[in-house]
């Protein structure tokens, strides 16, 4: 897994520790941002292979962070990488939630609490072809 960098964007320290440990065990290099603006800075400064993104964040929320980065990827300002959103489902209206999902341009949404094995499997799917997939899903 060496060389594959995952950026966790999450303000809940306990969730960060749990996910970070699971990924490091699998050999990923893990970086962390605790708010939206910090996440944008980190993603622009260093290449990222995948981002795990929370929605309810201080500064900019996850929907905004995802949309900004995906637009910058389209413009060639940032190297493309998949964004996997991890949300605790705050939006009461399913219609609004659907709209925000499309608007954010994120690659996938997973709901908390998520199964750790499933998370690793989904990360593997998004990294398919990169050589990290098989090992991450194991």
């Amino acid at each position: 897994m060496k060389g594959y960098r995952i950026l966790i964007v999450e303000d809940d320290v306990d969730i960060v520790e749990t996910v970070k440990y699971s990924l490091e065990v699998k050999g990923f290099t893990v970086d962390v941002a605790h708010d939206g603006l910090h996440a944008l800075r980190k993603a622009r400064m260093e290449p990222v292979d995948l981002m795990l993104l929370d929605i309810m964040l201080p500064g900019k929320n996850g929907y905004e962070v995802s949309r900004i980065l995906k637009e910058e990827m389209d413009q060639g300002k940032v190297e493309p990488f998949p964004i996997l959103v991890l949300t605790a489902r705050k939006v009461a209206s399913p219609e609004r939630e659907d709209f925000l999902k499309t608007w954010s341009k994120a690659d996938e949404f997973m709901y908390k609490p998520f199964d750790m094995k499933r998370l690793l499997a989904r990360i593997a799917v998004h990294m398919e072809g990169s050589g990290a997939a098989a090992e991450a899903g194991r």
Partner: protein
Amino acid sequence: MKDKPRRRESRDHLAKVFESFPEALLSLDTGLRIVMMNAAAEELTGFRRQEIARRRVNAVIGVAQLRYMTGILRERGSFTTASFITKIRSKEGGEIPVRLVVSPLRRGRRGLSGILCVVSDLRDVKRIQGKLLEAERLAALSEIAAGLSHAINNPLCAILGNTQLLLMESDRLDAGAVKKLRSIEREISRIQRVAERLPRITRPASSEYVGGRRMLDIEASGHARRRSPRGRPAKQ
């Protein structure tokens, strides 16, 4: 001599206005006995006019707040009009919510010949009010449920993650510890299901809790169908 036909014509016209008025009208004498009622009043109360003519209004339709009418009788000459929400009894015995406007019927400058009652049916208004209240209650519940679900799911995520991390190393744990961790994992899934169902409640149902208090019955409540991540309804 020409006055008589004109007066008759006016009286006939007034009788037609009274009869055709879209709201229920009742005219009472000073003893609060029903003298006249129009077609709308018959339709509203279910009584035919010959059934209740000359009977006291409260004995027939049971107007709950007679004090406004007796007030008009007491204050002869002040000619105040009162409007209030009350209930009347129909012929079938059912209660009908109404707005009642009571107004004195003048005789001369200071005289009083009776009271005119305009009775507006409020059943549709009450029905709409009930629906609006229910919608507001549901919106508030949905908001609380979404917040609660969010507040539960974040810590649950850390608990479940750590439990599963320990289970990944189950070969280094004894059988009893693994059993307990599996139990924690199962119970987390239970809480997760409750948190997931809460914001989708569309028809809240309640059941009795300890001490006679009511509590939200999540299982018995109606839920909107769960949506898949792409927005399509998913299998329950």
